[in-house]
């Protein structure tokens, strides 16, 4: 399977079709030019030949009891998967300031309960809200939710207004503050746009099983994150959700998040 999204100049590749393409992940069997500068080649039609459907809803379950303090395997894996590790600090920038400006799609957070003093550590990323505030506020519709529940940014529509960052209750989004040096073909990025966790959407479109963070956590032997289809009663994630108590962060906002936590 080979997909090449060839964008010579992503600045002028503004077109709604591409968004539609991302939205339904419609495969095409021949090389098609959908707009000047955007060329889609598809060698093998499946599984991207099928449009994204709402028969599935992708989600994560995070068992904080298994998440280990000091481990950052998921964060590192995410950075590699999405090319965030290729980002370098601008030469003249102060390290401390850059820390507040560099993108992070997932981060580790350590909490202590004010009453009991109990400590919890967990990974925090976009919660893939069913009712996403970031999508509601986006003026251009660049921030969108796919039929399968993944919330992401169409980088050709995003004008970089950062309204979605103001609206997200989980501070899940990052603004790209500097030039992007080197990026992965499967994860286009660009200065001046907003980005966030997209549940490794490139893997979804190739029918792969899990996400980079899930794999990395498992490789460390922790198995704290489970990825799966929230609509399939036979999926591991659904079975686990049935077995153990879990909750959404900021349940009071009734966003019906696709990422659930147990033990917080």
């Amino acid at each position, binding site marked *: 399977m080979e997909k090449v999204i060839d964008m010579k100049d992503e600045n002028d590749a503004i077109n709604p079709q591409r968004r539609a393409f991302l939205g339904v992940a419609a495969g095409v069997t021949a090389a098609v030019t959908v707009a000047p500068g955007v060329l889609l080649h598809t060698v093998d039609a499946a599984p991207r030949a099928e449009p994204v459907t709402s028969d599935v809803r992708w989600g994560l379950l995070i068992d904080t009891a298994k998440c280990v303090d000091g481990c950052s395997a998921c964060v590192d894996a995410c950075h590699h998967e999405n090319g965030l590790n290729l980002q370098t600090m601008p030469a003249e920038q102060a390290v401390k300031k850059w820390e507040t400006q560099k993108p992070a799609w997932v981060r580790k957070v350590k909490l202590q*309960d004010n009453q009991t003093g109990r400590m919890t550590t967990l990974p925090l990323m976009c919660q893939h809200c069913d009712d996403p505030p970031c999508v*509601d506020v986006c003026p251009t519709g660049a921030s969108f939710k796919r039929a399968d529940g993944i919330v992401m940014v169409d980088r050709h529509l995003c004008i*970089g207004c950062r309204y979605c960052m*103001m609206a997200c209750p989980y501070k899940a989004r*990052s603004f790209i503050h500097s030039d992007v040096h080197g990026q992965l073909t499967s994860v286009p990025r660009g200065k*001046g746009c907003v980005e966030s966790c997209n549940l490794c959407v490139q893997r979804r479109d190739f029918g792969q099983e899990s996400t980079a963070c899930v794999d990395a956590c498992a490789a460390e032997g922790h198995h704290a994150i489970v990825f799966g289809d929230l609509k399939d009663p036979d999926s591991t994630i659904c079975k686990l959700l049935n077995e153990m108590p879990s909750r959404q962060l900021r349940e009071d906002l009734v966003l019906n998040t696709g990422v659930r936590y147990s033990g917080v």
Partner: protein
Amino acid sequence: MKRIVYREWRIPPTQFWSTLGILAAMVGMATLAFGYMEHTGHWVSGMNNSVVWGTPHVFAVFLIIAASGALNIASISTVFHKPMYKPLGRLSGLLAAAMLMGGLLVLVMDLGRPERLIVAMTNYNFSSIFAWNIFLYTGFLIIVIAYLWTMADRQGAAFNRPVGLIAFLWRLALTTGTGSIFGFLVARQAYDAAILAPFFVVISFAYGLAVFMLVLMYAFDEDNRPIGEKIMRRLKNLLGLFVAGGLYFTLIYHLTNLYGAKNDGFELWLLTNGGMHTFMFWVGSVLIGGLLPLGIIYHPELSKERNWIMTACGLVIIGGLATMSVVIIGSQAYPIQMFPGQTILESGFFDGVNGAAAPYHPTIPELLLGLGGVAVSLIITVVGVRVLQFLPESLADDVVALDEELLREEAFAKPA
């Protein structure tokens, strides 16, 4: 009562051109700042992933709501039948259009991808209040221009009242819309308040009037045109009323936040412990923008002096910028409460470790960009009054029409 005559602003050419020159230089600096920030990326600004809207937005939102407030003068005369304000209507409309342009320009110049503006114009997400605002703003400009026409043209005069009414309602929608940009953000503790929209409407009255009075007094002074005591007293009292109204809403807003247990963490932080933001609130917003101007406006002696009134207007504007910085920056600096009842001990993304506020240090380019917006508004105004007939020849007491209230005041004044 004499007929009102409007004349172009007849200051000496050297003065006109040097004023324009200074303003153009400010715009030039802002353009450089814009180019710099866009070329290198926003890392050169003080904004970061926690405080995503900074100094440019403080200026932009100030200009936009001041624009809708400035139009208020024209509305008072047309909608509420106060003939006294009629000669001020044209300038009021011009200032409204000018400040809106300046404010919007700053917003656009701060986008991560300003070159994609065309995308914003062609792809609308109708659930976004931002997208609605694009209509509200362009509509506002068109209506203001139509309104100016009804004021200036004999043929248009018949439409003056209906257009004035539309303009009035539209400007209320506009300010509410601008306030709602923040009101819809449920995630942010500071914005979780229904009172934000009326608060924005009241402060827009105050800021718009302060700018209007400052421009009016300066323009008249330079051109040796008279402003009568009566109209001065009326404008000044109106400003006092709006400033007091703004203070009142500030009080209600913070009291309700304190009372609602949900947001008291934010309140305590802002009122006592927020460093720069606490300073901005108490010194900038409350003292400079509220108490001091009120003190001047209601002072028996100072309030009679034009220079002091101009000072009061200036203070309201400075205080307004401080208020905007509290509303926009302060509320972002305060960490989002993602885990109520828990303290964050460590985080890889500045999630408010031990309740710490997010850092934000404004930078020169951001400031220049914001000031550039102010300069654009002033250029439009200066050129407007210079080449077109926006300013009445005189606002002396015997020229302006008296409205009922003044007549009543007169009646009371006589026996004394």
